[in-house]
């Protein structure tokens, strides 16, 4: 089959690779219909997430058709149109049963790597390095879906593929930030990042009753999209003092909930940007946490900060003093998508949630390297490049 493979830092190519097989009785094989770039892929591409091997198939946000099921798959059959959660969860460990799907104990066959790195092993993730199980990604014609009864969700009739696609990752990730960040009616919510996850977090905050939602970015086309399709206010961090502006817009209190949707390659304005970049380039720090820092300083006393962006290691200049003395709740997670996807598909079905506008560029899988170039460098207003492996 055809697949988009990581070949080295900033190097991708489309290759012929072996078709996936059913290896466990609870596996399904899905013929990929649509698969999209995600901001977290850029960390792989840039070499910030170790444990990638030349030839690894990337991609984790996808939708397709079930073409084969293992003998223990009960909820799906051949021909089902499904959207698959990017995080693999077994559904039966204590964490999965308690809704903490990205903390699944059983879905990472290479647990020692993240166990050593973080003190506990992470869950498996499609196409996201051997630290998260070494599963082949979705930028391919077929993908193996372990624990298919728990990770694949039937797409309701009447919902288009493109609308359902983002229920695989961007929409549940954003929803989780607002939900677990504790957004309540009347809240002021600030979201760092107007990419797909940031837009979905902003929309989720609005649907959960936030009075005012302010999204922060520097790319005009993304900010315009957020205003037009999500209905949130926006702030350009290169043109204003974000913390002062957020204070002014929240009566001096600061936002009740701050959601960071940027990750380890965050940019900032001023000398801090140079400082973080130099340290990262010199290998003195793995992550650039500019947005997390700002969120902690901006948040109201006793408020909540949720970190949705992907981080890998240690960060420098983390404002622990502000966090402690302001009494903040700081939380983060890879997405617990399985607990949100059914509800999100219903919301897409009844028109409460719109996602298809984020697919700014659609192309055959053969154009994958070009798609990532557009996406990474934000050329031509690219918010998400979506690949059609069978086009």
């Amino acid at each position, binding site marked *: 089959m055809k697949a988009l493979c990581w070949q080295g830092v900033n190097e991708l190519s489309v290759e012929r*690779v072996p078709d996936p097989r059913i290896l466990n009785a609870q596996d399904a094989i899905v013929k990929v219909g649509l698969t999209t770039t995600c901001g977290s892929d850029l960390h792989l591409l840039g070499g910030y997430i170790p444990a990638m091997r030349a*030839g690894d198939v990337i991609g984790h946000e996808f939708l397709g058709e079930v073409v084969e099921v293992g003998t223990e798959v009960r909820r799906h059959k051949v021909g089902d149109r499904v959207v698959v959660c990017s995080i693999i969860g077994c559904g039966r460990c204590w964490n999965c049963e308690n809704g903490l799907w990205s903390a699944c104990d059983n879905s990472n066959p290479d647990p020692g790597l993240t*166990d050593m790195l973080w003190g506990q092993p992470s869950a498996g993730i499609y196409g996201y390095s*051997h630290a998260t199980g*070494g*599963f082949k990604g979705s930028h391919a014609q077929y993908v193996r879906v372990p624990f298919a009864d728990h990770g694949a969700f039937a797409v309701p009739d009447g919902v288009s593929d493109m609308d359902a696609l983002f229920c695989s990752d961007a929409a549940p990730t954003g929803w989780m930030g607002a939900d677990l960040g504790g957004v309540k009616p009347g809240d002021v919510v600030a979201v760092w990042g107007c990419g797909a996850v940031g837009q979905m977090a902003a929309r989720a905050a609005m649907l959960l009753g936030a009075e005012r939602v302010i999204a922060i970015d520097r790319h005009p086309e993304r900010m315009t999209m957020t205003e037009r399709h999500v209905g949130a206010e926006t702030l350009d961090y290169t043109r204003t003092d974000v913390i002062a502006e957020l204070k002014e817009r929240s009566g001096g209190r600061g936002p009740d909930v701050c959601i960071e949707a940027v990750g380890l390659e965050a940019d900032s304005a001023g000398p801090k940007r140079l400082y973080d970049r130099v340290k990262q380039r010199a290998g003195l720090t793995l992550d650039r946490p500019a947005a997390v820092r700002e969120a902690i300083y901006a948040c109201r006393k006793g408020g909540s900060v949720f970190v949705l962006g992907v981080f890998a290691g240690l960060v420098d200049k983390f404002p622990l003093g502000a966090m402690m003395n302001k009494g903040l709740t700081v939380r983060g997670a890879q997405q617990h998508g399985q607990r949100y996807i059914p509800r999100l598909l219903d919301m897409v079905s009844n028109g409460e949630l719109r996602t298809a506008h984020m697919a700014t560029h659609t192309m055959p899988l053969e154009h994958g390297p070009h798609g990532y170039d557009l996406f990474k460098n934000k050329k031509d207003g690219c918010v998400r490049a979506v690949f059609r492996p069978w086009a």
Partner: protein
Amino acid sequence: MKRAVLGAVSLGGIGLGVMRWRSSRRSRARTRREAARWLMVTINRRPEEVLAEGRLPEPLARLGDTVEVRVREAPGGRGTELGARPLAGVPTGATQVLARLGGEDPRQAVRRALRESKCLMETGEVLLPDAPPSTRPTPAGKILDLAVQRAGGEGRL
């Protein structure tokens, strides 16, 4: 003056010797504690399910009498705490590093068996890694391959 310097040097030397002796005692005691440590997993199943008909889960049972095992109910309705440790001595210090790289530290087999037991008891299967691979050999890839091969038996478990 000469005598005072000599005395200070002697006292310093004795002090350093005592510190080193105490530190090496502490280090040996710590090594003994580490070697005797139980490796534990909590399985989201009741003890009578984990020990169905008095038998250990298959991956752990395969280790036979090379391990010591303990089972107790986890607090808060979290299932069963299953622990094991090798009966044979485990390598320590520099030999431990070599043994772990060579896949010969007996704790690696115990960690793997505990993880597989948990997965089997909770899900009914041991999840297999993707195959066949799509990767090509590179020098960095070979190092990663070694780490991945050991990953099932490694970590802080």
